[in-house]
């Protein structure tokens, strides 16, 4: 049976992240704590960030959702540890643009996120891949408003900031 679309969606690297997500270790005294919800499907996650000197020192994420939202959150945790806030926002913006049909800029360090490109062929699942990133943006926007600028509201995703 040909399941090209499915094989492309559920790549092994995605399933690996789903089975053992990054970011499970607790963060002591986080500077940012946000909860993201997808009210349409019930997916949710809690994100804590330990930030010092303009860099993300540690990310803790507790995701409750489908493989796509969990894998995307795990990749976020993996990729953003040690990143500057500017790098974090740039990655969010680029990844979002890719999910909405754009291409990765040439030479862009995309890591495992590349594996999520198959999600583009399943439009209803794009919001799953974006949940963690929208949550991140909202958390950083309240931590350092000048850096992030105006946050584009997404009707599919609701973010509650607990601490920033």
């Amino acid at each position, binding site marked *: 049976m040909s399941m090209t679309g499915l094989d492309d969606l559920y790549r092994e690297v995605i399933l690996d992240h789903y089975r053992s997500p990054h970011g499970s270790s607790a963060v002591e005294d986080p500077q940012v704590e946000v909860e993201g919800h997808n009210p349409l499907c*019930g997916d949710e996650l809690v994100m804590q960030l330990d930030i010092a000197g303009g860099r993300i020192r540690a990310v803790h994420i507790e995701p409750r959702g489908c493989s796509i939202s969990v894998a995307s959150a795990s990749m976020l945790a993996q990729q953003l540890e040690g990143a500057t806030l500017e790098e974090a926002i740039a990655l969010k913006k680029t990844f979002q643009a890719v999910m909405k049909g754009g291409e990765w800029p040439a030479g862009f360090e995309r890591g495992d996120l590349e594996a999520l490109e198959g999600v583009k062929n399943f439009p209803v699942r794009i919001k799953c891949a974006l949940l963690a990133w929208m949550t991140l943006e909202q958390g950083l926007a309240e931590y350092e408003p000048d850096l992030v600028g105006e946050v584009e509201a997404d009707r599919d995703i609701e973010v509650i900031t607990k601490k920033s």
Partner: protein
Amino acid sequence: MQQVTPKAQATPLKTPLDVTRIREDFPILRRRVHGKRLVYLDNAATSQKPQAVIDAISHYYSHSNANVHRGVHSLAEEATDAYEQVRGKVCRFLNGDEPSSIVFTRNTTESINLVAHSWARKHLGPGDEVVLTVMEHHSNLVPWQMMAKDTGCTLRFIDIDDEGHLRLDHLDDYITRKTRLVCLGHVSNALGTIHSVRTIACAARAVGALVLVDGAQGAPHGPVDVQRLDVDFYAYSPHKALGPLGIGVLWARRDLLEDMDPFLGGGEMIRNVTLERSTWAGVPHKFEAGTPSVADAVGLGAATDYLTEVGMHNIRAHEKYVVTYAMERLAELPFIRIFGPRDPADRCGLVSFVDKDIHPHDLGTVVDQHGVAIRAGHHCAKPLMHRLGVVATARASFYIYNDHDDVDALIDALIAAREVFGLSASR
């Protein structure tokens, strides 16, 4: 791909329906999805439409289209007759007492909002209680929350047991002398539980409370007799019962409708209008402001005829037969957990379940690739999901055109999902 062949002598039940012939009436069932036969198991969201309904709407626009209740020309008269005739059909369908007690709305949600606005806001205040259940669809919860905030009345919730039955043993604790209104679903859209509306209506009567039934999952799936149920309001959405999207039904006791104020103001619902004030048309027209969806009403008439011909008792028996088979087949899969009543007699043609290792959204995506349409999510019943300790479930819901082969396709697709995720299908 692993295939599991259905067990021999799977179920002793028989269906009274000729499903092969019924399927021929539904043009959409001939289409293919991802190269596979469409297996439509999302009937609790909306049903498919038989050719007779599609033709009735098309014929209305091709031959009789005009606005209703105004104009003296022939088309206006035909359109008005067609529209008002459907009121009579729907009234008979619910065994209401008179056609004027049927109000056309846009959907069940609007019907419930109408009662919340026009009855509850007028009559309820601090100290009064409205009793709901923890398993209501958001459409039978949110309007009451809004109403309670405005009036100061209190909402109380009947709990469920672990199988998803209402705790009728504690009814006296919930339905008391303070209770003015009891609102409950006829059948749960999330678990399929058929509620004992009569038992609850009886308890409500004893304290002088009114009863509203959200029949969105009731009316499509079995005979409804509002007089025998002894309720005051019954709402449903014809699009879940072979009818078109865009029209809803509210049946209410005529004396209550007389006493209620209008919901929306505008054309069609007035008797006289001056610049300062207006008086209202009679029941039911004072609740139908603006131009109604006449074509959808005509389609509803055709759908009601179709259901009546198939027979609502037969539909109930058929769903029991399909859901019994579905529960047997799902029980063969060790990785599947079923929610709701264990006895298929206590549920309509609906099964909510989870794969212990695969999130319902992932299941939904995978089975869709096999042509199988199921719902994955919280089913607009987030408080119930919380009560069950899950964020979401997968839900297969059946109707008159579904049979064993559809259940088998679902089972095969669920097994295929295990493969996609590199999981064993035998544990």
